[in-house]
């Protein structure tokens, strides 16, 4: 696909413009639930509206959006996140002192990624009876660098590959929802300090961080600057250090757990089922 075609795909850009206007006009909606509140953010409506005009999701949408528009949308995701990342940088800069003060917590907080192995892996293997795909699915939060690790070690067509791709796709589809909901629930329950929750927002992709820190800011508006600075710094560190943690700690640990908990010497079932 030529770059020029992507740029001149007016149907795609016009749709995005319309979606953005509608989403921003609706604004943030707060839904109280028992233990806290869920915040519905414009970026979540934008994602849902995007799905609704996606012909792969709603067949009738093909009268407006063509397969070529769907293809052109993919590279636009990375470009559209750039101004957001730049803006994030401008929030981190002035708050450098807050970040330096939180330094040790920020660096060690990467260890919290191991929480996924502790919580998800036993359920996948013991309760759901999954095979080796549980290794790929549970060793990390399954973003692009983690896929690269699995692709390198097992190949993406392996069972481990199917596991990491499954979680990647679910994360891509619903990750913003899950993180926004987690952040708004924890922010309103008061179990953790807001700074700790902000740092935890940085563990996933850029859009996950956006949804997560956005939900936190909407819940605790008076701490906006600190929340965004800590989430952003944590996200930068995730890219810098998270990968090493995955390669040298999380993946070997998950492998060991599988030897211990997983099915013993049975013929490997086919991937995905």
């Amino acid at each position: 696909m030529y770059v020029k075609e992507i740029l001149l795909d007016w149907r795609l850009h016009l749709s995005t413009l319309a979606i953005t206007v509608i989403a921003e006009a609706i604004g943030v909606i707060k839904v109280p639930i028992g233990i806290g509140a869920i915040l519905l953010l414009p970026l979540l409506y934008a994602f849902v509206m995007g799905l609704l005009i996606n012909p792969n999701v709603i067949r009738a949408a093909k009268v407006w959006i063509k397969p070529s528009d769907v293809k052109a949308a993919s590279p636009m995701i990375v470009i559209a996140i750039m101004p957001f990342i730049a803006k994030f940088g401008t929030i981190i800069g002035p708050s450098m002192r807050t970040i330096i003060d939180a330094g040790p917590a920020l660096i060690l907080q990467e260890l919290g990624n191991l929480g996924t192995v502790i919580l998800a892996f036993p359920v996948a293997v013991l309760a759901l009876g999954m095979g080796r795909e549980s290794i790929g699915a549970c060793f990390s939060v399954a973003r692009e660098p983690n896929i690269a690790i699995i692709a390198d070690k097992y190949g993406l067509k392996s069972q481990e590959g199917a596991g990491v791709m499954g979680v990647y796709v679910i994360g891509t589809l619903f990750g913003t929802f899950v993180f926004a909901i987690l952040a708004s629930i924890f922010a309103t329950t008061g179990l953790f300090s807001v700074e700790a929750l902000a740092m935890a927002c940085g563990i996933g992709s850029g859009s996950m961080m956006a949804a997560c820190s956005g939900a936190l800011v909407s819940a605790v508006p008076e701490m906006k600057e600190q929340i965004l600075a800590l989430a952003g710094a944590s996200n930068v560190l995730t890219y810098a250090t998270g990968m090493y943690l995955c390669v040298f700690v999380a993946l070997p640990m998950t492998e060991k757990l599988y030897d211990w908990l997983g099915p013993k010497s049975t013929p490997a079932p086919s991937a995905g089922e």
Partner: protein
Amino acid sequence: MSDTQTFEDPTEEAKFGLGAHAAALVVVCIVALVGNTVATENSVPQGLVGLIVLWGLCMVGLVLTAVVPFKLPSVAWISLVGIVATLPWTPGSAWVVETVSHVNFLTLATPCLAYAGIAIAKREIAIAKTSGWKIAVVAVLVMTGTYVGSAIVAQLFL
């Protein structure tokens, strides 16, 4: 489904040159400017100046991605440029902070997620379907585990 499933590597990006990036960023900034005007009290000129500055920061980051010999993702460079430009001891940082303050950060994520919704391909829907409900349950646990785990560790060391 008898044919072998093949997964494209999602880390592979379409190769855009600098000029194409510049033009695509203009498209994104126009969408963001309209969104910013709808979402906030900021005037169009205020939003425009803010977005021009952000566009400039992105471009510096992209130039660095292309020029610097060791490989870092472009978003990492852009983030770094944004940080350095606004450090308290960087000359002119106050001006940068003031101009970009008229652009709402959450609004900038809205067009990105709209593109993401439109970009979902048949392949991704197929993976979600074949992996089934089990992988969905596991994925939610993975995200929850990572979030709570990180929050606990951060809480301990703060």
